[in-house]
Structures are given as structure tokens and as C-alpha cells.
């Protein structure tokens, strides 16, 4: 019986092309996934770096008994430019007074390393500081970095 040893379903070239095509098609979702992961990872490290290098110090606070305004002098001592976004003033009795970006004015709005920004709350709302009482003032930046200062009104 005669056998046909030269019988092939596909030529080697065509077979290789098919394999390449399949691999390429399969790799596309992997590529898309890994690219996104890389971007997220890079973004994570970048934000972490900014937070790690963001540092503020409250130098002085002008908060006096019976006066319905408050001025905080905040210095940026980190490498990242900062913007003050929240101010918390807590009383010895535990009452917490929260002031958002809309409640105060910062001058200048954003400061770089070494510079000073003045945060002025022109109206403390229902909070009326009492003289000779110690209050705790906290200022936070837009990335959640903050500093604490105790002041006797």
C-alpha cells in the first residue's frame, strides 16, 4: 500500500502567520489591562509623593474672645504647592466648628515652599470665642495634610 507522506493541511508559512495572529489578538486585552495598571500605579506613586512632600505649619492664629473673626498664618514648608481647604476649631468642651473653602479667604490662594498664606474667616458663624479659653485650630490642605495650633482666645 502506498502512503502519501507529502500530504499537509497548511503550509508552514501560513501556519506561522495564523499563530502570530492568534497571539496578537490574545495579547490585546492583556496589553490594555497592563497599560491601565501602569497608569494607575504611576498615578498612585505620584500622588503619594505629593502628599509625602506636602507639609504646612500654622505660625500664628489671631482668635480672641468676643471677636467674630479669625486669622491664621500658614506657611508651606513642603515641596508641594498647597491650598488650604478646611479649618477646624475645637473648643475645650468638645464642640467642633468646621469651616470649608467657602467660609474663608486665603491670600494668596496657593503657596509654594517657604511662602506664607493668610487664612481669614471673617465670620465664625454661631461660634463665639470666650476669652482666656484655649482652642485648638486645625488647618487642612486640599490633599488632607494639616497642622494643629493651640491658641488662648
Amino acid at each position, binding site marked *: 500500500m502506498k502512503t502519501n507522506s507529502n500530504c499537509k493541511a497548511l503550509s508552514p508559512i501560513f501556519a506561522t502567520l495564523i499563530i502570530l495572529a492568534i497571539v496578537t489578538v490574545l495579547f490585546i486585552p492583556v496589553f490594555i489591562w497592563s497599560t491601565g495598571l501602569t497608569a494607575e*500605579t*504611576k498615578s498612585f*506613586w505620584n500622588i503619594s509623593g505629593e502628599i509625602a512632600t506636602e507639609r504646612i505649619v500654622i505660625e*500664628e492664629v*489671631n482668635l480672641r474672645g468676643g471677636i467674630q473673626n479669625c486669622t491664621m498664618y500658614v506657611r508651606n514648608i513642603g515641596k508641594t504647592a498647597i491650598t488650604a481647604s478646611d479649618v477646624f476649631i475645637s473648643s475645650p468642651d468638645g464642640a467642633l466648628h468646621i469651616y470649608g473653602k467657602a467660609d474663608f479667604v486665603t491670600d494668596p490662594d496657593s503657596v509654594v515652599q517657604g511662602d506664607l498664606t493668610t487664612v481669614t474667616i471673617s465670620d465664625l458663624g454661631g461660634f463665639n470665642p470666650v476669652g482666656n479659653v484655649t482652642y485648638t485650630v486645625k488647618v487642612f490642605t486640599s490633599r488632607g495634610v494639616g497642622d494643629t495650633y493651640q491658641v488662648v482666645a
Partner: protein
Amino acid sequence: MFSILIGIFLAFFDYNFVVLEQMKIEDERSQERIVLSGLELDNQTCLYNVTVKNTGTIEVRVRAIYVADGTTTAFICDPSAYMDTYIPPDRSLNISLPSGVPFKPEAKIIAATERGVKTKEYEALLVYGPPKPVWEYDPTKLYIGPLMLQFDAFWYRKTLGDGTLDPNEPWNPGWSIPKGFGYCAWNITVMNIDDRNITINRFSTFNVVPNDSPSTELPWYLEPTNQTDLTQFLPVNQTRNIIYIWADPKEASGDSRPQKMTLPECTCMVFLTFFGVFHEHDGTTTTYAQTIPFEAAITVVG
């Protein structure tokens, strides 16, 4: 895939770098320390300039001056805006202040650096200095007991072999005596600050104790002013000189020998011991004894 890994590593190393930078900033901040050391006024009414001393180990830059009084805390100026406010370690800088800042003795002046390190001090303390402590003790009048020694009235003088004062020699300040001086007398000044008269007897001594060899102490015994009973009377509130001459308590027979300064070159402590009686207000007498250590030592010099 290789480029993806490179990107991730670059992001990580960039993070690592900025964290190290921040740690460096924190380290520098921990080395910063400033103090306010002076404040000058303009016509005694306004602040003129403030002196800031860098007591840390790193150069600082003063970026803010505040004044806080009872009613407000105010930002006065950023001196770096109009002058060079860098201060090297262990150096001071006079920082000019804007005109028109009133001097308030009770207010605090505050200086802050670029890294957020602050110092504050009362304006009055900077202008007038710290208050002098109330010193209740006059160091020239230290005493415990009824006889008060006047430390600045203390002399020695050469004596002859029979104990009489050498008429050709003056009294010399007692704090330093030449080595091998020979026979000498000591003269101290005391005041009776008790409310009772005192009589001291011939056993009262002036003891010189070398610091290096206390066992070789030399006593000088009293030369009594009353040669009958060999005592000396010290009335209330009166200053009297007491003279010490003798190597032993003086004898009524006159058979006494004067003490000789035989100590080598050294520094000595001096102790005065007094023995005698108080004359009480009711006419009786009670025993009296007192020791006065000198606050300063005498020196035997070569």
C-alpha cells in the same frame, strides 16, 4: 512589557526621591533654632529693629515678624522682602521693622523662619532686660550667729619674737601672705549684731587650714584687749577689730609665744572660732560659741 515595567519603576523611584527630599527638609528643620536677643526703639514709642540670633546648626532665613498683644496677633512684615535675612549659625542679624509699629511692653514679638521655626519674647524683656532677682543677701555680710564678719576688712602684720606688733611694718591686706613670713598677727573686723553684749575669751582662734594638707593647720589665738581677765568685750551694734597673735591661748603670766607663718606655698581656708559669754538683759551670762568660715581663702605665695 519591558516599557511598562520601566514606567512603574520610574514612578516608584521618583516617589522615593521626593520622600528623601522631604526627609532632608525635616532634618534641616530639626537643626534650626533662633532666639530674639534685642529690640531697639525709635523715640521710645515705636519698634525700630529686632535682633535675631541663630542658635541652631544650620543657616536660617527669617520670613515673618508678628506682634501679639492682649487683643490681637498681627503679621508685621516679611523682612526677606526688603533685606537679606539669611543668618549663619551662631550669628545675629538686626532686622529693621516697618515704621509705626507701637512699642507695647506687655506684647510679644515673634519671629519665624522659612522652615516654620518660631521664637517669641516679651518686648519689655528685650528692651529693658530681664528683671533683676531680688537678692536678699549682701555677700559682704554673710554670717550665722551674733558676730558678723566684714570680709573686706582683713589684714596681717609682722610681729616681733615677744608677740608685740612690729612698729616698722604696716597692716597688709590679708588675702595673700608671703611664704616664710615668720611671726605675724591677723586682724579681722566684726560687728556684734545680737541684742546682747558679748565677751570673747582667750581661746578664740583664727585657724588657717591648707587645702592640700588640712592636718597641718595653724591656729592664732586671741590677743585680748582686757589683759586682766584675758577677754575682749564686743558691745551691741559696734564694730570692733580682733587681733590674733599667739600660738597658744595667752597666759596671764605673759609667758606666751607668737604664732609663726610656716606654711609652704599653698591656698588655705580660714575658720574663726569664738568662745565666750552673752551678757543677758537680766544681768546673767550664758555661754557663747560661734564658727565663721571665710568665704574666700588666703594664699601663701612664694
